[in-house]
């Protein structure tokens, strides 16, 4: 190759993109180049191509992380990412009611008092470690008890003005997609078996929600009516 005098000052956007991708530029020049990425799509394209090539420098690299790393990462993530779950909820339901931690604590206390209906007491006393949630909002309170051993989901709906609408319970796991847990009997305690697919998502910390649906429940697989109550599932003991 012939020597090219002054090559270091040759204006060449593609080379600038390469220099940015490889980290060759001093801070000021790099910042100016980064600003261009936002407004100059040809430059951004060149940068994307060089970035992919630069990543190829790692082709021969690799080292297996020790087994404790992944649990350590998971432990640093909230049990249920409120930000994600709530953002999802808001996307579906403009007026989603935020869960109240205070209400949850109060609710668990209430739950631990003698329950009004005999069949609920028997569920609470189930031998496996049950989970509870108190879903609260302006509309009222719904208490939920889930027994993983039997798959039974018990509920008490209290003070919820539903009109002619059905009360449908949902679990919203970390992927943000609600799964129906079925319709709740109104104005009385009751229980039913949790649908198997949704039951898998019933873990401590997961968000539950109640929506008001047409009689018979949502036919779309997602909440169609207003989400009036939300709360989190927690270990009962």
């Amino acid at each position, binding site marked *: 190759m012939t020597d090219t005098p002054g090559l270091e000052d040759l204006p060449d956007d593609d*080379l600038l993109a390469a220099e940015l991708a490889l*980290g060759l530029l001093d801070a000021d020049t790099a910042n100016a180049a980064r600003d261009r990425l936002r407004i100059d799509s040809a430059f951004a394209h060149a940068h994307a191509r060089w970035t992919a090539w630069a990543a190829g*420098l790692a*082709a021969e690299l690799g080292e297996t992380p*020790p087994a404790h790393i992944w649990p350590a*990462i998971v432990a*640093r993530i909230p049990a249920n990412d409120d930000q994600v779950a709530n953002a999802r909820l808001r996307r579906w339901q403009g007026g989603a009611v935020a869960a109240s931690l205070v209400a949850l604590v109060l609710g668990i206390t209430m739950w631990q008092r003698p329950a009004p209906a005999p069949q609920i007491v028997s569920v609470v006393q189930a031998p496996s470690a049950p989970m509870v949630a108190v879903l609260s909002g302006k509309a009222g309170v719904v208490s939920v008890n889930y027994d993983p051993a039997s798959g039974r989901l018990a509920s008490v709906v209290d003070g919820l003005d539903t009109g002619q609408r059905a009360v449908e319970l949902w679990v919203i796991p970390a992927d943000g997609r609600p799964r129906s847990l079925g319709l709740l009997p109104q104005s009385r305690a009751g229980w039913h078996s949790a649908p198997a697919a949704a039951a898998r998502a019933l873990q401590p910390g997961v968000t539950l929600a109640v929506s008001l649906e047409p009689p018979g429940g949502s036919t779309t697989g997602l909440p169609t009516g207003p989400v009036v109550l939300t709360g989190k599932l927690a270990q009962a003991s």
Partner: protein
Amino acid sequence: MAKPSDASTNSGFSGGSFSGPSLDQALENVASGDREAFAEVYRRTSVKLLGVCRRILPERQEAEEVLQDIYLTVWRRAGAFDATRGSAMTWLITLARNRAVDRLRASGRRPTDPIEYADHVADPTPDAETQAIALDDAERLTFCLGQIDSTDAGLIRTAFFEGATYTELAERVARPLGTIKSRIRRALISLRECLA
């Protein structure tokens, strides 16, 4: 105007040797809070990313700490990944490289040791046999880096893995900034021709 959505921006790591959803898809699912997808991304990429961290931060414990931070960032910021701008693997390697270099700089232990430097640029010797083989992008880069002068290839690797700018490279090879900049630019032009 061309959009950066063509397959050439893929660095060749996300290809079809995996079963199930693509890594790109898995990373997009992480953006919506999918923990299973997050575990899948970790399973597929953590060996590579720890390799990147260790290349930049030789001390094992420090590299592992940065690896954890990187995946927490992946969890929180996966929404910033844009598949039209490049592959998930490129995004992850770039993130890992930048985090590890930031850590290196913050620690004040940035390498300053001299780099072996040959003033004479060796003529490239095209390897016709290898050229005839179809290469994916990562293999092509390895091949093309082998085609350029070894000092130049070393300088490019040092820039990427040690966060060394032109100025710092010039200091470490004890040559004028203009000389180094000109030389690396010439190498990048050769690289571009080979990669095209």
